[in-house]
């Protein structure tokens, strides 16, 4: 019963996200000064670092915009696996997808997010 309800809720949310228009790619010119400073600060650091309250707000906003460029399915896979630490099997159970589909979605989303951030970091970093 719980799995059935979870799957219905997941599919309903996916349909709602799908119906909303996908935002275009995040480009450097869209970034505010605070966001540019944040990227410079974070990319110059190493390893895991603690963010202050203001940086957290900027990070959440950037994450939202980054995820907004992905398809709902890719977004779900990336959020659950990389963000929440869920396993491929758990995502497959929640969504009803095959494990290979979950892996492909996560791979594709991870690659898109990495490439988008590389573009954003390009002019500022290194």
């Amino acid at each position, binding site marked *: 019963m719980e799995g059935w309800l979870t799957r219905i809720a997941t599919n309903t949310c996916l349909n709602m996200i799908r119906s909303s228009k996908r935002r275009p790619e995040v480009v450097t010119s869209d970034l505010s000064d605070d966001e540019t400073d944040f*990227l410079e600060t*974070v*990319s110059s650091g190493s390893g*895991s*670092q603690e*963010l202050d309250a203001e940086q*957290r707000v900027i*990070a*959440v906003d*950037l*994450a*939202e915009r*980054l*995820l907004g460029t992905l398809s709902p399915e890719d977004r779900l896979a*990336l*959020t659950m*696996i*990389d*963000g*929440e*630490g869920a396993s491929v099997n758990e995502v497959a159970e929640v969504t009803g997808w095959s494990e290979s589909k979950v892996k492909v979605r*996560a*791979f594709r989303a*991870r*690659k898109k*997010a*990495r*490439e988008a*951030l*590389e573009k954003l*970091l*390009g002019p500022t*970093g*290194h």
Partner: protein
Amino acid sequence: MDNHIVDILDNTPFNALSADDLSTIHAHRSICADCADAWEAARLSSLLLHERVSDAAAQAANANPFFQTRVLAAWRAQQTSGAWGFRRLWNATGALVASMAATTAALAVLMFVAPATNTTTTDQTATLVPYSAESVVLEQDDNQLTNDQIISAIYDDDDEGK
């Protein structure tokens, strides 16, 4: 750019990279700027995602404590309003449903009653008319021409024409 490093970063969640993967990446990124950029972007992506998930969890924890109560109350209200919902539905579509039922009844009457009436009329006609097709064919009068007479009449006419 070493695609092997990028493949590792794209295939594995950043926080799930093994010690071997990390040592391979660190050894390579010190000599490859592209792979260093890819590593930095993957690290930043993971950081952003974790901040977003943490923020969502904090919001869920601070959600309205009466949310569940309100949802259950709304659900019960919807359940109890089921009869009223049917009444509203009937008020909206009652005329249409009634007219459809009347049309169906009229069609049924036309289909089952009207053919029976026609059959009766045919029977009455048969009783009024003293002969039928069979009687015309089979019960011919002696006054009518026989086949031989007809044939001879036809050939006689032909002979006269010659």
